[in-house]
């Protein structure tokens, strides 16, 4: 048997699911009852997206209550693939009942519960495991389960302390002390901190072994420091830190912070003993000054600690020397100015009073610029960054030569010069913001492209270029730079917003170009690996007893699972999909289910905006905000608004009401974190703070969509076939596909209807006129388009929102396309209303389409390129080759030509598809 089964495993391992299924079928003829073969076939089916067929086998195997290791292992994969984690728990429960002495099975049952965050059950199971199998680690599994249950937001606050007390009792019941293993020790300490059992913590930490653990474990030492702080033992911690710094040469900034906190708190309301503070201050200053001398330029900690201490002294009114702050800053610049981090180090101290600010600025201005070597160049760059940070609003007006250092760009082609190009690009962006003149963006583009020829790997240049190309409508150039960075894995979650934010406005999916759809799908891969891998490693961490990691992994998994970016991409993908695939009831049903899953998620924003090299002055808007497409950043409010629109539209268009969905849906429901009210009411809710995240044109779209849904709701409700009919149809389809009836669905006796459209006895709701907002939407958007024409991006935005309104109309009226539905439901009068609406929309969209196509052609002309090249005159001093600039101009204008023109053509195509 084993010999016959091996090829199936091999086929599965190599992803040849088809041959795995064939091999299973062959073997099943001989051994029709074999659970392992059935399971492996179910697995191959899941992996080939044949969910219904897989379900049948899966249920058969579950019903047989397997205990065989190979079957259970394969079933774990099947159930995970189907999202049936709860069934996994019951499967192992059954197996454990049949083989109560099997330790592995008990462990699997524990992990299955951990997988669905059922910590209460996990805690009980591990307690039982300890009693039965006498392994100390099961006590700790149980301890951590109790803590995780306590920390779960779903646990009542009153239970929290009780659970921690339970954890404490369990730890102390362990036959071996927790310090045999640093992760057990860590767990023990975290309980003591929570329960404020400081004496017990102290006994552990002051013991020889406790000290040794903290010396070799950053995690334990972190917790120790925390426990000391919670108790307010700052002075004691300060003494320890000082010893570590001077005796063990520790330069961890955390030690310096402890020393500073012992000297002067950051800022407190409590009354300080002034003379004592002055004494401590002087003492620490002396200590740090000496240390700074010994360390020289080797380590900057002491120098920076002096700055931080002076800042604190000032905030407490204890500073004795008015010029000391700036003196320390100058000293810092003298010593560390040739390191790239100098600017960032000094940034927190740059907010200065008038006199200090003047003295600091004149110091920086008096430095002699030099490009002699890399160190000098870095010094120069730091100087410029620091000066720019402190520019006042007056310095920022256009007449000021804000990019005066651009000509400083040395011909040396050193990589550190990247920063000069970025600084100049920051200045160009500011100038563009002030003047609204695109020529400043042209300069930034040409300069950054030039910098990239000298330093090919400068991702900072690329990131800023992506932003600017998008602002200029040159979408394919943005994609080119994005792809050159090879963003992958977890970076897809944090960085894909650079090209996928509002990507549907650049998408050419309507013409069959799947560039952005592909990027959406690729960006979503990481969420699949999160589902597959992270849980696995939570189990692994239990096995390895690395308890400190488990809460971190759970947070990580949650942040990725419920990532805001994930679902923003989902919405963008949906918007593109509707322009690419014919709108059908399949799309409506599938998207409805997916969107409803997302709707109640508590989202985490993992997007990395800080990665942009921002050298804008303190008083200015941040570079990120300055370069956002359409001046907005989509947040949870934006997402929720679009989710509501599409869920509502698809709910109306779909036959799957909640009761049907309940029966048909496979797998677990998402964990309900928010108390869910009536979904229908929540979909109508509108919050001002959400709307604030929308562009004015999106607001118009929302108003239109809402009015459209309000108008059509009664007719959809009237025409939707009753659940029994829908289920019967689904059962019929399943039986045709799999040869088995649909489980749990009883087919009602037929009452004369054959095609699902039952004859209605009741009268249809009276047909009302289309609301004004719906009637006027396309005219209003057309008018907006005429206003927006001068900005390629805004024009595309308005045009695509108009197109989206049209596609939403198609989806909302899809149900009424079937003449039989209209007839049985007596809705002829309603359908008559659709015709002029549709015709008007198509006419206006065709006009916009023609205008975009014309604009695209214009973008491809020599004049446009000349406009760009002429605009780049500010770069002439840099000796950047004219042909190079012309080349950049050509790429940019060609890219824009393609985007604008093709969006126009795609729009015409959609008009033809849905013309009637």
């Amino acid at each position, binding site marked *: 048997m084993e010999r016959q089964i091996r090829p199936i495993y091999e086929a599965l391992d190599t992803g040849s699911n088809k041959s795995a299924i064939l091999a299973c079928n062959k073997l099943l003829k001989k051994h029709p009852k074999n659970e392992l073969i059935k399971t492996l076939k179910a697995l191959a089916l899941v992996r080939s997206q044949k969910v219904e067929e897989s379900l049948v086998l899966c249920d058969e195997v579950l019903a047989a209550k397997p205990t065989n290791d190979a079957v259970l292992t394969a079933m774990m994969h099947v159930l995970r693939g189907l999202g049936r984690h709860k069934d996994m728990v019951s499967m192992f429960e059954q197996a454990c009942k049949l083989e109560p002495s099997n330790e592995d099975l008990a462990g699997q049952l524990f992990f299955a519960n951990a997988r669905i965050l059922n910590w209460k059950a996990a805690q009980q199971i591990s307690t039982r495991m300890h009693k039965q199998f006498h392994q100390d680690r099961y006590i700790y599994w149980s301890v951590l389960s109790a803590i995780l249950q306590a920390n779960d937001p779903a646990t009542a606050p009153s239970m929290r302390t009780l659970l921690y007390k339970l954890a404490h009792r369990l730890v102390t019941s362990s036959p071996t002390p927790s310090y045999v293993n640093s992760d057990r020790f860590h767990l023990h300490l975290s309980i003591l901190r929570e329960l404020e059992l400081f004496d017990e913590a102290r006994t552990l930490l002051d013991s020889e072994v406790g000290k040794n653990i903290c010396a070799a474990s*950053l995690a334990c030492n972190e917790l120790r420091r925390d426990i000391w702080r919670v108790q307010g033992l700052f002075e004691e911690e300060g003494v320890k830190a000082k010893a570590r710094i001077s005796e063990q040469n520790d330069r961890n900034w955390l030690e310096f912070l402890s020393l500073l906190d012992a000297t002067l708190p950051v800022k407190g309301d409590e009354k300080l003993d002034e003379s004592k503070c002055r004494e401590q201050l002087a003492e620490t200053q002396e200590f740090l000054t000496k240390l700074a001398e010994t360390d020289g330029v080797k380590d900057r900690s002491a120098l920076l600690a002096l700055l931080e201490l002076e800042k604190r002294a000032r905030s407490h009114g204890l500073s004795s020397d008015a010029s000391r702050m700036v003196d320390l800053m100058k000293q810092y610049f003298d010593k560390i100015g040739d390191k790239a981090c100098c600017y960032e180090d000094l940034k927190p101290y740059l907010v200065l009073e008038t006199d200090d600010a003047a003295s600091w600025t004149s110091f920086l201005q008096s430095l002699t610029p030099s490009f002699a070597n890399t160190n000098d160049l870095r010094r120069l760059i730091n100087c410029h960054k620091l000066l720019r940070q402190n520019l006042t609003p007056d310095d920022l007006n256009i007449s000021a030569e804000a990019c005066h250092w651009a000509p400083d760009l040395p011909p040396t082609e050193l990589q550190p010069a990247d920063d000069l190009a970025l600084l100049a690009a920051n200045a160009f962006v500011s100038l563009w913001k002030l003047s609204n003149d695109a020529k400043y963006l042209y300069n930034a583009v040409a300069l950054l492209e030039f910098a990239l020829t000298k330093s090919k790997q400068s991702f900072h240049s690329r990131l800023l270029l992506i932003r600017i190309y998008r602002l200029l409508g040159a979408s394919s150039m943005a994609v080119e730079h994005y792809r050159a960075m090879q963003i992958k894995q977890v970076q897809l979650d944090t960085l894909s917003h650079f090209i996928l934010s509002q990507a549907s406005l650049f998408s050419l999916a309507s013409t069959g170009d799947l560039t952005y759809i592909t990027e959406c799908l690729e960006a979503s891969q990481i969420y699949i690996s999160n589902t597959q891998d992270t849980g696995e490693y939570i189990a692994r961490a239990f096995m390895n007893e690395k308890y400190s990691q488990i809460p971190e992994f759970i947070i990580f998994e949650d942040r990725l699972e419920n990532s805001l970016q994930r679902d923003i991409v989902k919405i963008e993908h949906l918007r593109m999909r509707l322009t690419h695939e014919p709108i059908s009831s399949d799309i409506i049903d599938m998207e409805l289910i997916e969107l409803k899953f997302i709707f109640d998620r508590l989202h985490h924003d993992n997007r990395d905006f800080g990665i942009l090299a921002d050298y804008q002055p303190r008083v200015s808007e941040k570079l990120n905000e300055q370069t956002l497409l359409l001046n907005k950043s989509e947040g949870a409010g934006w997402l929720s608004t679009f989710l509501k629109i599409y869920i509502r539209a698809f709910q109306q268009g779909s036959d799957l009401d909640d009761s049907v969905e309940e029966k048909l849906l496979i797998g677990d429901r998402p964990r309900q974190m928010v108390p869910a009210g009536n979904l229908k009411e929540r979909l109508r809710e509108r919050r001002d703070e959400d709307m604030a995240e929308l562009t004015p044109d999106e607001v118009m779209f929302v108003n239109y969509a809402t009015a459209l849904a309000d108008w059509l709701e009664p007719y959809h409700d009237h025409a939707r076939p009753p659940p029994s009919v829908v289920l019967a149809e689904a059962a019929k389809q399943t039986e045709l596909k799999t040869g088995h009836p649909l489980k749990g669905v009883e087919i009602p006796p037929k009452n004369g209807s054959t095609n699902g459209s039952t004859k209605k006895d009741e009268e249809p709701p009276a047909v009302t006129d289309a609301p004004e907002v719906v009637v006027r939407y396309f005219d209003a958007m057309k008018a907006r388009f005429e206003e927006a024409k001068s900005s390629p991006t805004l024009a595309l935005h308005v045009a695509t929102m108009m197109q989206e309104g049209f596609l939403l109309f198609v989806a909302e009226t899809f149900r009424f396309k079937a003449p039989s539905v209209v007839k049985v439901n007596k809705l002829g009068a309603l359908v008559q209303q659709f015709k002029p609406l549709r015709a008007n929309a198509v006419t206006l969209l065709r006009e916009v389409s023609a205008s975009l196509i014309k604009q695209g052609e214009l973008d491809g002309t020599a004049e446009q390129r000349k406009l760009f090249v002429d605009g780049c005159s500010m770069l002439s001093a840099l000796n950047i080759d004219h042909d190079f600039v012309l080349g950049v101009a050509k790429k940019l204008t060609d890219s824009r030509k393609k985007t604008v023109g093709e969006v126009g053509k795609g729009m015409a195509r959609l008009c033809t598809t849905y013309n009637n």
Partner: protein
Amino acid sequence: MSVLRPFRAADMFSFNNINLDVWTETYGLAFYLNYLSTWPDLCYVQAAPSGRLMGYILGNAEGSSSDIHGHVTALTVAPEYRRLSLARRMTALLEFVSEEAYHAFFVDLFVRCNNDVAIDMYEGMGYSVWRRIRHYYGSLGVGSRGKDEEDAFDMRKPLSRDPSRRSVRPNGREMIVEHVA
């Protein structure tokens, strides 16, 4: 000044300034989670007081009896934070913990044979070449320095459990192996 603290899973959300550098690879989730679920005490980050990450080290401990050793799998510092001894401090802690918690005899690491800057740095930290491994890095192909670009040096540093310095040999650069054992 930089905070030396444990690498946490959530740091993957903020290591872009380090990992976008072309010489730092971004692996799948499983890679990082495997290290964290097995050797969390050998994985650290250095962070600026603002919280911005500056660099990180991921290490493991393997081998048995007299071959027990710590291993530096990934060591990287963002371009703007180089020349601040961050790598040195992270490596020193990894060496200390390898010895204290895993009773290691030595710590080793692999480095591209043409990466003179890194080799110099490691030599300065007490590492020396133990052997040369052929075709360890396949990705770049053979360039101007021939096999140096795809071969790796296995560099080792003896810890105090190896007082006779058995993990050091003078002719390590000539000891060529085809595969890592």
